[in-house]
C-alpha cells in the first residue's frame, strides 16, 4: 500500500488525518443518535469552524517561517470592535467597515512584522505584547460596551439566516470548482510530460479526480439539504465558509506555487542558508505577518457578523485553537514545513469535538479534557507517520 501511495503522490499524513476525522465523525454520530452527521449540524460545524479555519491558514505561513503569532485572538477582538464601531457609531455600510477592519488587521500585522523582521525582537515576545495591546485596544474602542446594532445586510457574512448563497448558486459554484479541479489535474499531467517527468499512473489521477468530485458534490448536497427556518428554502453554502475556502486556496497557492511561498519555507527551514541565498528575509517576514493580520481581521468580520454585535472579549484564547489547528495539521513548530490542507482539517477536527460533545451535553470540563487528549494523539500520529517514512 505504501508503494501505491507513493506512486499516487498522495500525502500519507493528510490521508491519516482524513481517516482520523472520519473516525471521530462516525463515533460522534453514533453517540448522538445520528444528529452529528445530519445536514443541519454539518452546516453548523462548517460555519463554526470557519473563524479558526481562516486564521489557521495564516498561521501555517507564520509557523512555516519559524515564527509564532500569539496575538491573533486579541487582534480578532480589536479589528472586530473597529468593524462594529464603524457601523454602529460612525454609520458606515458593512462593506466599507469590513474593508477598513481588514486594513486595520494588515496594519497591525505589519507593525508586529516590522518589530520581528527589522528590529530583531523574537516573534514570541512581539506577539505576546500584541496579545496584551490589542485586547486592551479592543476594550478602548468602546470602553468595553457591546456595540450594536450593526449595518443591515452585514449578517450575509455571518452564515445565519441571510448568510448563505442559496441552492442554485451553490450547485453552480460546485460545478465550477469540479471543472477547475479536473482542468488543474489534466494540466499537471501535461506539464509533467512536457518537462520530462514520469507521469503519475492514470489510475492515481483518476482517483484524485473522483475523490475531489465526490467531496465537492457531497459538500454542496449537504449544505443544500439544510433549509431556512419557516420558509424551508435551501440554504446552500454559507458565506463565511466561502471566505474560508478562499483564504485556504490563497494560502496554499502562495505557499506552494509562488516565489514568496518558497522563500517562507526556505527561511523557516534554514535561516542561514536563506540569507546566503540572497533571500530578502526581512521583507518576506514582514509579508507573512501582514497576511496573518489580514486573515485575523477577516475572521473578526465573520465573528462580528455572526454575533450581530461587537464585544471586546471576542477571540479570547482563539490563538490556542488556531495554533493547535495548524500543528495538528502537520505544520512543524520547528519551521520549514507547512500544510494548509492539514490546517483546514485540523480546524475541522478541533471544532468537531466541541460541536459533537455539546450535542451530547458534555460539560466544559469534559470537553477540555477530550480536546487536550486529541491534540496530543493527533500530533503523535503525525510524528509516528513521519518517522516511518522520513521523505514524506
Amino acid at each position, binding site marked *: 500500500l505504501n508503494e501505491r501511495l507513493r506512486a499516487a503522490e498522495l500525502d500519507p499524513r493528510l490521508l491519516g488525518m482524513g481517516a482520523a476525522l472520519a473516525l471521530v465523525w462516525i463515533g460522534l454520530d453514533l453517540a448522538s443518535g445520528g444528529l452529528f452527521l445530519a445536514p*443541519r449540524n454539518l452546516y*453548523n460545524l462548517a460555519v463554526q469552524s470557519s473563524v479558526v479555519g481562516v486564521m489557521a491558514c495564516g498561521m501555517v505561513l507564520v509557523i512555516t517561517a519559524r515564527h509564532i503569532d500569539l496575538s491573533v485572538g486579541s487582534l480578532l477582538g480589536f479589528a472586530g470592535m473597529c468593524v462594529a464601531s464603524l457601523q454602529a457609531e460612525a454609520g458606515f455600510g458593512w462593506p466599507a467597515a469590513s474593508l477598513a477592519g481588514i486594513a486595520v488587521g494588515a496594519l497591525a500585522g505589519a507593525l508586529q512584522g516590522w518589530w520581528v523582521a527589522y528590529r530583531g525582537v523574537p516573534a514570541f515576545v512581539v506577539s505576546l505584547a500584541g496579545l496584551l495591546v490589542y485586547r486592551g485596544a479592543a476594550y478602548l474602542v468602546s470602553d468595553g460596551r457591546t456595540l450594536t446594532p450593526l449595518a443591515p445586510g452585514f449578517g450575509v457574512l455571518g452564515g445565519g439566516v441571510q448568510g448563505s448563497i442559496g441552492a442554485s448558486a451553490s450547485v453552480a459554484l460546485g460545478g465550477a470548482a469540479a471543472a477547475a479541479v479536473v482542468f488543474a489535474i489534466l494540466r499537471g499531467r501535461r506539464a509533467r510530460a512536457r518537462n520530462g517527468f514520469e507521469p503519475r499512473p492514470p489510475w492515481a489521477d483518476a482517483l484524485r479526480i473522483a475523490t475531489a468530485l465526490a467531496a465537492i458534490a457531497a459538500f454542496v448536497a449537504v449544505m443544500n439539504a439544510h433549509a431556512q427556518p419557516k420558509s424551508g428554502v435551501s440554504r446552500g453554502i454559507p458565506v463565511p465558509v466561502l471566505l474560508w475556502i478562499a483564504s485556504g486556496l490563497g494560502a496554499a497557492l502562495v505557499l506552494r506555487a509562488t516565489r514568496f511561498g518558497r522563500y517562507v519555507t526556505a527561511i523557516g527551514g534554514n535561516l542561514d542558508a536563506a540569507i546566503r541565498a540572497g533571500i530578502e528575509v526581512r521583507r518576506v517576514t514582514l509579508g507573512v505577518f501582514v497576511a496573518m493580520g489580514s486573515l485575523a481581521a477577516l475572521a473578526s468580520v465573520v*465573528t462580528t457578523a455572526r454575533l450581530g454585535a461587537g464585544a471586546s472579549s471576542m477571540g479570547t484564547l482563539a490563538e490556542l485553537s488556531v495554533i493547535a489547528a495548524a500543528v495538528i495539521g502537520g505544520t512543524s513548530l520547528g519551521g520549514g514545513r507547512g500544510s494548509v490542507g492539514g490546517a483546514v482539517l485540523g480546524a475541522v477536527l478541533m471544532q468537531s469535538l466541541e460541536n459533537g460533545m*455539546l450535542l451530547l451535553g458534555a460539560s466544559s470540563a469534559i470537553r477540555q479534557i477530550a480536546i487536550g487528549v486529541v491534540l496530543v494523539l493527533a500530533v503523535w500520529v503525525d510524528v509516528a507517520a513521519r518517522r516511518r517514512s522520513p521523505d514524506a
Partner: protein
Amino acid sequence: MHRAFWLVLALWPATALWPAMAQAEVVVGVSWSNFQEERWKTDEAALRGVLEERGARYLSADAQSSSEKQISDVETLIARGSDVLVVLAQDADAISPAIALARAEGIPVVGYDRLIEIPGVFYVSFDNVEVGRIQAREVLRVRPRGRYVFIKGSPTDPNSDFVHGGQLEVLRPEIDAGRIEVVGDQYVDGWLPELAQRIAEQILTANADRVDAVVCSNDGMAGGVAAALRSAGLEGTPLSGQDGDHAALIRVARGLQTVSVWKDARALGRRAAEVALLLAAGTPPTGIPGAGVFRSGPRGVAVDAILLEPTAVTRDRLDVVVDAGWIPRATLCRDVGGDPPPACR
C-alpha cells in the same frame, strides 16, 4: 534660598493648621482594582458625590489590575491617614495582608462589590442570588411551562453559581412538578459571547429547535444566544440576561430579550460611601441600617453585609434605565419598529 526661607515662614501658620483640619474631616481611602472598566467610573462618581456632600475627604488609588500593587496601594492609603478604607479587591485572597494591616491599625474596611472573606470586613454588593431569581421569575412569567435551557457563566467565577443558585431556587418546584423540562445546561468559559452562541446552536440542534425559553446569566452571552435563536428562526424566545448592556436593552425594546437584570452602580457607590462614613464615626457594623450577615461565600465565612436589590428591566420597565440616564432614549428606541415599548412611545 533667602526667598524660600521667607516663603516657608509665611506659610507656617497655614501648615500648622493642617492637623486640626484633618481631625475635623473624615478621610475615606478607596482602593480600586482597575479603572479600565468603564463602570467603576460611575461607581466612583456616586461614591465621591456622597463624600463631598458630607464634607469628607476622598483619597483613591488604582491598582491597575495588579493584586501586588493593590497591597501597596492600601498601605499608602493607610499612611496618608485614612479613617476608613473601601476596597474593590482585584484578588479577594491576595489582598488579605493589607486588610490585616488595616485591622491592626483599627481602621474599618468595606469590601466593595467583590467579597473579601475575612471576618470584620463589611461587604457591600448587589445580591447576586437575587439576580438569578429575577431572571428565572421574569422568564417563568412569560413561559410558565416548557423546555428550558440554562446558559451559565464561567465555571471558575463564583458569581456564576450564585446566579444559577437563584435561578434554581425559583425554578426547582416547577422542574419537580414536571412543568419545566431542562433540555440544556452548560457553563460558558470566560462568559464569552461567541462560545455561548456555539453552545446555543448545538443545544438547538440537539433538540430539533424544541426550546421554549433560555435562562441566560448575563447580557453578553444573551447576545450570542439571541444570534443563535435568530439563525434558527426562533427570535423572540424568552431570554434573560444581566448588566443592563446597551445592546441588551435594545434587544429588550425590540422584544428579542425578556429581561436584563440591572445593577445600578450609582446606588452601590452611594451606599458604600454612607457605610464607610458610619463605620468611621464608630458605628458598630450591626448598627448600620439594613445590615445583615452574609455567609454564602466560597468558604462560608460570616461577614456583616448590605446586599442591594438589583432591578429587573423588562420591556414595560425600560423607563427606569432611561430616567436614570443609563442609556439615552434615542439609542434605546432607534429603529424599534411598529410596536414600540412604553418607554419609546
